């Protein structure tokens, strides 16, 4: 073991750590939307990855017209949030009160439609989003791009903003009350169906934001949602379904492990790490790795 550790230069370790945190923060952003939606309405949103993907594509389009990354970020977030609201109103509201099976099926259908719509509109060739600024700083002998740190910071900022809104915001109480007890929330005059739509929209917006932020790091194409939705689901299960803090920790934890793993194996194989973590979690702490085991 010692020899293995010594064989890895410290600087590579540090770089992978930062990489892990950066990817982890984006994953956390995607996963928190998913967990928020699940926590409040028990809906497993299979279309979440596609909302991420559409956010990235809208980012591409808006950047092409305005040339401004930040406008693209905000616009994509708002547009996809609106799309999320429409999706919820048309397909998920009618299913309120029905068998939970049906929402899984419905969101799966939505993901298929969105994926193929993107394929139809944008074609199979990957697009690229330009980074809003280039520029690196010296990290040992490597040039580490500033942009990556900014992504991590922005993701953290968005998640923090969400947390603050939930804790102190005017409608944050409505959302938290509805998550805890939907029936009593209604009895208190909270318009629960609208709260659900709003939360779905917020989750969708967050996914879109992650898509735009992540865009410059990889190519934007119609299947990018698939990998992310899978990772996000793993994160949500490992973090404890419906547990916001848990998903964030799990996202960073898993990303870090994967980054370290990619020092030895190819990235395609590094994903196995997340699978192993999932299996171990299901074996020993099925309610969530970072959730205290219920007595």
């Amino acid at each position, binding site marked *: 073991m010692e020899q293995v550790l010594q064989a890895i230069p410290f600087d590579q370790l540090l770089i992978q750590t930062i990489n892990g945190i950066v990817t982890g923060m984006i994953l956390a952003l995607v996963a928190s939307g998913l967990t928020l939606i699940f926590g409040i309405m028990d809906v497993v949103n299979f279309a979440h990855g596609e909302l991420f993907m559409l956010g990235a594509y809208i980012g591409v389009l808006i950047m092409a017209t305005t040339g401004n990354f930040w406008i693209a970020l905000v616009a994509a977030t708002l547009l996809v949030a609106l799309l999320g609201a429409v999706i919820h109103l048309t397909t998920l509201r009618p299913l309120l009160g029905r068998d939970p099976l049906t929402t899984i099926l419905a969101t799966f259908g939505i993901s298929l439609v969105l994926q193929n719509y993107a394929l139809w509109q944008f074609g199979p060739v990957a697009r690229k989003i330009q980074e809003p600024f280039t520029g690196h700083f010296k990290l040992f002998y490597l040039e580490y791009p500033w942009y990556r740190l900014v992504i991590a910071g922005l993701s953290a900022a968005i998640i923090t903003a969400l947390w603050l809104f939930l804790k102190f915001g005017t409608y944050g109480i409505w959302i938290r009350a509805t998550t*805890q007890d939907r029936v009593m929330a209604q009895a208190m005059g909270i318009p*629960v169906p609208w709260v659900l739509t709003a939360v779905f929209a917020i989750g969708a917006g967050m996914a879109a934001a992650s898509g735009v932020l992540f865009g410059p790091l990889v190519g934007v194409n119609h299947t990018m949602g698939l990998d992310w939705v899978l990772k996000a689901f793993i994160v949500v299960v490992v973090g404890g379904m419906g547990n916001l803090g848990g998903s964030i920790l799990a996202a960073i934890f898993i990303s870090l492990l994967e980054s370290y793993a990619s020092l030895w194996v190819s990235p395609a194989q590094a994903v196995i790490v997340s699978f192993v973590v999932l299996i171990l979690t299901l074996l020993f702490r099925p309610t969530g790795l970072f959730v205290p085991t219920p007595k």
Partner: protein
Amino acid sequence: MTTAVMGHSRQTSSLDPLLKVEDIHTYYGKSHTLHGVSLEVGRGEVVGLLGRNGVGKSTTLKAIAGLVPPSAGRILFEGRAITGLAAHRLARLGIGYVPEDRRIFRLLSVTENLRTGLDRYGVTAARKKQLLDKVHVYFPVLAERRNQAGGTLSGGEQQMLAIARAMMLEPKIILLDEPTEGLMPRMVSQIREIIGVLKQEGVAVLLVEQNVPLTLDASQRIYIIEKGVVRHHAPAAELRADDAVIHQYLGV
């Protein structure tokens, strides 16, 4: 009490009862739970609903609160038909609901629990403060614990919170489901006091209870339910004088 009234009356004369339940039927899956319940509550009146376990008392309240839609029959509130309206709209119309086992929001603080009722459209900040202050006066223990999470309160405190929370809606009627259940005997008098406070504020109360003496004392009229139907209806005074009927139906 099935009166064949077509349409709904827009005039609410003082003779109209605040709440009128006409022959409602409900189902839970395939089982027929309410077989035609009819009752009335006047403005500011305290009305008791007695009956053994499982006869449909809670279901009646839930139907009125909009949580269990009746499959037949009508419910009128202030002369308006409200059958089938969503629960959150009924709450805003002025129907407060305090369920069995309280169901306060355990992870929200006391103040946040109260705010779920306060944060309504059309309530000024000043009025909100007024209402909060009033609650703190009536329920000093809630003022003490205002930042504590609801789940950390004792049973009696949670009951008070549940009632206070409903009061934040400034309701015209509060549906109280077994407020003394699971509470220590000395809390019963506190509940009695709270019902008195509600009456004082002009809020009508429809009280479902297993505790007969409390109900007899607090209510002006009493309905007795058995097997999903109202079997007896009398002024409380009458029943206080002769409670044979109660023994007959409740076997107490």
